[in-house]
C-alpha cells in the first residue's frame, strides 16, 4: 500500500467530480428529493382526510347525528348527496369512488331496538363504490371502524376490551424518522454500486487502466483509493440528507459512531459487488443495466421504503438474505432505538458479507490486460 499513490488517485477523482457539478448535484439531489417527497406525504399521515359522499334517505335526527359522528371522526370531509338521486349514477357522474347510503327507516329501527328490546331490528348501511379505485379499501376500513364505534355507542354498554397503546420508545417517533435511515442506506448503496461500475467501465473503455498498468500503481492502491473516494462521496451525501431531514422535518435521530460504521460497510459491500460486475460485464451500458438489476430489487425488498412485515412471508425470508436489509436494520437500531446489541448483530452480518464480496471483487479486478 502506497499512501502517496492513494492520495494522488483520490485527488484526481475528487477534482473530477467537483468539476462535474451537474453530475454531483443530481447525485446528491436524488435521495434528497425522495426524502422531501416521502417526508411530506408521511408527515401528514395522521391527518389524512378522505372525501366521503353520504346520501341520507332517512332524513331524521338519528341519521343526521350519524353523519355528524362521521364528520367529527376527523377522517372524512362529507359531501351530502340529494336523497332523490341514484347513488350509483352519482358515483359515475361525479367521478367519486364511494357513496355511503343511510337507509330510510333507520330511526324507526333504532327505536324498535331501544324501546322494545327487539334485537332483530337493524339498518343496512350501503357502500356504493367504484371497485377500480385504489383508495376504496382504505376508506371502507376506516368507515367500518367508525360505524363499529357508533354501534357500540348505540348499544349503551361500555366496552369490555379496551386497547391502550404503549410504545417501547420513550419518545414518539414518526414514519419519517424510520424512513431516513432506510434512505441513507439505499443512497449509499446506489452511489457505491453505480459509482464503481461507471468509473471502472469508463476508465477501462478509455484505456486509462491500461496506461495505469504501466505505472507503479498496484491493484490494491487503485482499489483502496476508489474505496476512500466512494466513502467520502457517501459521507457528503449522508450529511446532505441528514441536514435536509433535520432542517425540514425536525427528525428525531441519534447521530453516533454506528452511522459511520454502517456507511463504511455499505460502501465496502457495494463497491465489492461493483468490482465483480465490471469484471464480467465489460461494456458500460451492460454494466449499468446489471447494477440496476441488483439495486432495484434490493431497494424495494430490503425495507428501505416500507417495513418488510407488509410483504408476503417468502419475500420477508428473501429480504433477510439481502445485505441492504442489515444496513437498514442496523442504522435504525443505532439511530432510533439506540440499541447497540442489535446494531452490533447487524454490523456483524453486513461486515462478513462486505469482507467476502470485497475480497472476491479484489481478486476479480483485472490489473493486466487479457487476465
Amino acid at each position, binding site marked *: 500500500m*502506497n499512501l*502517496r*499513490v492513494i*492520495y*494522488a488517485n483520490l*485527488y*484526481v477523482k475528487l*477534482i*473530477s467530480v467537483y*468539476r*462535474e457539478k451537474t453530475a454531483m448535484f443530481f447525485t446528491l439531489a436524488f435521495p434528497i428529493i425522495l426524502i422531501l417527497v416521502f417526508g411530506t406525504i408521511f408527515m401528514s399521515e395522521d391527518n389524512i382526510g378522505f372525501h366521503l359522499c353520504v346520501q341520507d334517505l332517512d332524513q331524521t335526527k338519528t341519521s343526521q347525528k350519524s353523519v355528524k359522528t362521521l364528520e367529527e371522526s376527523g377522517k372524512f370531509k362529507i359531501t351530502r348527496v340529494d336523497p332523490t338521486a341514484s347513488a350509483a349514477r352519482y358515483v359515475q357522474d361525479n367521478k367519486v369512488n364511494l357513496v355511503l347510503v343511510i337507509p330510510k327507516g333507520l330511526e324507526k329501527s333504532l327505536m324498535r331496538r331501544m324501546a322494545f328490546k327487539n334485537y332483530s331490528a337493524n339498518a343496512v348501511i350501503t357502500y356504493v363504490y367504484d371497485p377500480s379505485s385504489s383508495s376504496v379499501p382504505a376508506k371502507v376500513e376506516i368507515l367500518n371502524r367508525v360505524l363499529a364505534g357508533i354501534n357500540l355507542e348505540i348499544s349503551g354498554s361500555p366496552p369490555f376490551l379496551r386497547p391502550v397503546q404503549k410504545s417501547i420508545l420513550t419518545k414518539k417517533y414518526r414514519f419519517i424518522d424510520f424512513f431516513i435511515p432506510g434512505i441513507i442506506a439505499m443512497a449509499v448503496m446506489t452511489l457505491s454500486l453505480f459509482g464503481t461500475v461507471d468509473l471502472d467501465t469508463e476508465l477501462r473503455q*478509455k*484505456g*486509462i487502466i*491500461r*496506461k*495505469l*498498468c*504501466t*505505472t*507503479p*500503481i498496484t491493484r490494491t492502491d487503485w482499489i483502496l483509493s476508489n474505496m476512500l473516494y466512494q466513502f467520502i462521496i457517501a459521507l457528503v451525501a449522508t450529511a446532505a440528507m441528514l441536514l435536509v431531514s433535520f432542517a425540514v422535518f425536525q427528525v428525531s435521530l441519534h447521530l453516533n459512531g454506528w452511522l459511520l460504521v454502517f456507511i463504511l460497510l455499505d460502501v465496502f459491500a457495494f463497491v465489492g459487488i461493483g468490482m465483480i460486475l465490471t469484471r464480467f460485464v465489460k461494456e458500460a451500458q451492460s454494466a449499468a443495466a446489471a447494477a440496476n438489476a441488483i439495486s432495484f430489487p434490493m431497494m424495494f425488498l430490503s425495507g428501505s421504503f416500507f417495513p418488510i412485515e407488509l410483504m408476503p412471508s417468502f419475500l420477508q425470508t428473501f429480504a433477510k438474505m439481502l445485505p441492504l436489509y442489515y444496513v437498514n436494520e442496523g442504522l435504525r437500531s443505532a439511530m432510533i432505538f439506540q440499541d447497540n446489541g442489535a446494531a452490533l448483530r447487524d454490523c456483524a452480518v453486513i461486515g462478513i458479507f462486505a469482507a467476502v464480496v470485497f475480497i472476491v471483487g479484489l481478486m476479480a479486478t483485472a490489473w*493486466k*490486460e*487479457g487476465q
Partner: protein
Amino acid sequence: MAQETEYAIEVDRLTKRYGDLLAVDDMSFSVKKGELFACLGPNGAGKTTTVEVIETIRAPSSGKVMLLGMDVTKKKQEIVRRIGVLPQGFSSFDRITVKETIQYYARLFGGKKPDVNALMALVNLTEKAGERYKNLSGGLQQRLGIAIALVNDPEVVFLDEPTTGLDPKARREVWHVLQGLKAQGKTVLLTTHYMEEAELLADKVAIISRGKIIALDSPGELIEKNAGCSILTLRSADARVPEILRALGFQPVLDPDNDKDIKVPVHQNDDVREILNAVQDAGASCSALDLRRPNLEEVFLKLTGEALHESAPRGGGAS
C-alpha cells in the same frame, strides 16, 4: 538483479495466443540501448500485442522477453519504474488539466520530482497547461501522452502508434518530439503503420505481418535489399492522367495526403519517357515531376503483398 547488457530489449521466440488466435508467432528481435526501433505493420499484425508483452501489460504464452536485463514476467514493479509508455489510443481523465495530469502521473512514480514545466515545453504544451484534457485536440492529447510517458525520465520509451489518426501537421509535430527523445539518447520502441514515420525516425525497422517479423534492418538497408523499382510522382489535377497511365499498363496510386500527386512504379528510364510522351500526346498538364527510389511502403508491399491500412484522422491539428 538486472544483467548489464548492450541491449535494452531482447525478445526471444515470443508467442502470444488468444484462444485459437495466434497474435504473435515465434518472434525474436533485440533493440540496442539508445536505438529508435520501429515495428511497422498494418492493423492486426501483432505490433501492439508484442509491445504490451514487453511493457508487462500482457503475459506471453511462451518465449522469453528481457527488458533492461530483467525478465518482464518477473520484475514488473522494477521495470515499470524504468520505462515510459504511450499506449495505443491514449486517453486520460477528462476534467483534469494538462499540468495536473502530468503531476498526477509524476506522483504515481514518486522519487525525484520531474520538471513539469520543462516536460510541457518539450511537447510544446506550455500554453495549454490549464486546459482540461477533454478540450484538447487529438494532436495535443497525443503530445500530453508523450509528456506523461517521460515523467519518470525513463530509459526505454514505448510509443504505440503515436501519430495514428492525426492530421499531417500534428503528425510532424509529434515527429519533432520523437527526434528530441532520440537526441537525448533514449531507447525508443515505436509502433506505426506510417512508412514515412518509420523511414524518417527509425534506426532499425521490423516489418511485421500476421504476427511474424518478415524483415528486420535499417530503413536504408531494407530499401536497398528489397527495392525492385523506382517511383515516378506526377503532380496533375487532370483526372485523365491516371487513366492514361493505366492504359499503358502501369499501376498509378493517388497520394492520400495530396490527391494531385500520382505515384507510378517504374522499372527503367524508358518507362518514364513513355509516360511523359503519353501525357503530352493526350494534352494533359503536369505541374511537377519527381523520380525517386522506392520507400518502405513499396518494400512492405513487395514483402507482404498487402497494403498498409490507414484509419481516419483523429481530431484536429496542433496549435
